[in-house]
């Protein structure tokens, strides 16, 4: 590398999530256009607390390996860094190791020897309790103050790193950075910030590229290339037939954000309220006027999940118009009889377990908020039971079974037989989880909550 300060940095984002797939040709095109770094997100909290709570990836290994093989070969050929954030979906230590093993296998297969850094983001509950006592942990809306017990109850806690640990890993010689939980933006922002690009355009560009091609006219066609310079950034799709337009790019600031103008990162706040979006041609957009306000106190946001019980699911269906005409009454009767039967047979009061009856095809998704009227044509009846242990959850579901098969409405003088979808009807779902942390820790340094390990040569090399 030369010592000339960079005048611009080009970030290639092949897809919104590692494992989601992209055409290999789009990465080739990104290299031809002079990509300086490949950045891709490996996870999110989007699909719920299970992936953090159980420390399991959402994506299948083959899909992650397919994408990584293309990206590792591209990074090796171009001599540029590859950065993966939130490895293994939730960014637990186990998730980082899972991706690291896939990378090692590919490096061995392909005869590559790129130095790999693993950045671990899991946090120790006892250490966090000390921070809590010292007044260094603050709630983010809508959650309130953190109780020490809540930290103890989590199966896994991660801290969301900013760009700083990723920069440290590259400066220490890594060409492949496998980060634990990171902000979606930090993955793309790290390299341009390291090369001296200004924070406003860098963080704004990073937010726009975090979902890959979502800010283009054809999100399925592959990712995007953002070119960040001292005054702003330009963005274009990697597929030559797709287009970025000012509206599409500006609208992406709205996606999955509470506030479309301001976004907090560990070291400050991106402010796009004055940003301007201009079409340079029919597929490239120029963005200027993005600002970044550095915070007085660097903070790291925590995510934690805990087990709420064990679930068993059962699924029947109703097509009989007579029952469908009074489906809400039928469901109320099901709830009442089930509660009574569980008390009779298991001796369990309503505070010892919980269940939800969902009428798919009627109001299962929106419940009272559903604007539709009129009887449905058919309804799927899902029973979901949550109990402190799996045996109890399944016992409750089995007690519901004859009701979900034969429960009549109050005015029927015979037992109907409803339509079960599977045999056996009960499906054990194992532990269920919930997110319980939405709190920020005042950090001492931007990197001290994260552990960086660098391998000089691949393990199977």
């Amino acid at each position, binding site marked *: 590398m030369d010592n000339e300060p960079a005048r611009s940095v080009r970030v290639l984002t092949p897809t919104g999530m590692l494992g989601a797939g992209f055409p290999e040709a789009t990465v080739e095109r990104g290299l031809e256009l002079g990509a300086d770094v490949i950045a891709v997100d490996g996870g999110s909290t989007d699909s719920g607390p299970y992936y953090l709570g159980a420390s399991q990836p959402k994506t299948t290994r083959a899909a992650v390996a397919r994408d990584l093989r293309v990206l590792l070969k591209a990074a090796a050929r171009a001599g540029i860094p590859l950065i993966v954030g939130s490895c293994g979906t939730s960014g637990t230590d186990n998730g980082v190791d899972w991706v690291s093993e896939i990378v090692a296998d590919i490096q061995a297969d392909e005869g590559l020897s790129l130095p790999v850094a693993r950045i671990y983001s899991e946090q120790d509950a006892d250490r966090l309790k000390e921070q809590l006592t010292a007044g260094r942990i603050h709630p983010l809306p809508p959650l309130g103050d953190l109780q020490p017990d809540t930290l103890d109850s989590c199966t896994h806690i991660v801290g969301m790193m900013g760009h700083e640990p990723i920069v440290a890993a590259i400066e220490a010689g890594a060409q492949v950075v496998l980060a634990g939980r990171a902000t979606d933006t930090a993955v793309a922002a790290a390299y341009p910030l390291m090369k001296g690009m200004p924070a406003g355009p860098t963080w704004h560009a990073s937010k726009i590229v975090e979902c890959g091609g979502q800010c283009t006219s054809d999100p399925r066609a592959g990712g995007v290339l953002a070119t960040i310079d001292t005054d702003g950034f330009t963005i274009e799709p990697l597929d030559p037939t797709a287009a970025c337009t000012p509206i599409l790019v500006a609208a992406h600031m709205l996606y999955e954000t509470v506030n479309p*103008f301001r976004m907090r990162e560990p070291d400050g706040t991106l402010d796009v309220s004055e940003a301007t979006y201009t079409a340079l041609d029919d597929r490239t957009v120029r963005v200027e006027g993005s600002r970044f306000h550095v915070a007085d106190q660097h903070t790291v946001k925590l995510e934690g999940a805990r087990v709420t019980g064990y679930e068993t699911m059962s699924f029947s269906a109703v097509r009989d118009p007579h029952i469908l005409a009074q489906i809400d009454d039928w469901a109320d009767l099901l709830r009442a009889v089930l509660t009574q039967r569980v008390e009779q047979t298991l001796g369990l009061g309503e505070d010892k377990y919980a269940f939800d009856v969902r009428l798919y095809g009627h109001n299962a998704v929106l419940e009272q908020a559903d604007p539709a009227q009129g009887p449905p044509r058919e309804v799927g009846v899902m029973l979901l039971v949550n109990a402190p242990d799996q045996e109890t959850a399944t016992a409750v579901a089995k007690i519901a079974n004859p009701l979900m098969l034969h429960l009549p409405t109050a005015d029927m003088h015979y037992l109907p037989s409803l339509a079960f979808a599977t045999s056996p009807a009960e499906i054990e779902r194992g532990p269920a989880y919930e997110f319980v942390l939405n709190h920020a820790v005042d950090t001492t340094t931007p990197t001290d909550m994260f552990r960086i390990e660098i391998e000089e040569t691949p393990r199977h090399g």
Partner: protein
Amino acid sequence: MAESGPTTLGDLAFEVRSKNAGPFWVTMELFMRDAESYAIAADESFLNEHTVAELYGVDETEIQMFRIPSLNVVKISFPRPVSQASLRDRDIHSGQHHVPLATLLVPAT
């Protein structure tokens, strides 16, 4: 396309969508077709925190609304009423919560 009958916000929009914004918030956007339809959606006497609270059964004081004329967009965010993926959560990604907003009838002119 129904030519008669009352007009909904969805009729005047390119897209009405909803999504989770992290585990604790729901957010939704009305992408209106033009400045004229934007003016209807952005009219605070029609669509406001109170209307949204009624539609979704949420606390009016916790609703955040953003009116963005440069994009013809009205954006609405509020805390998730039900914890994500808990026993009573029927929409993990909050992806179908836009429907009551999209089917809201606009005032007759």
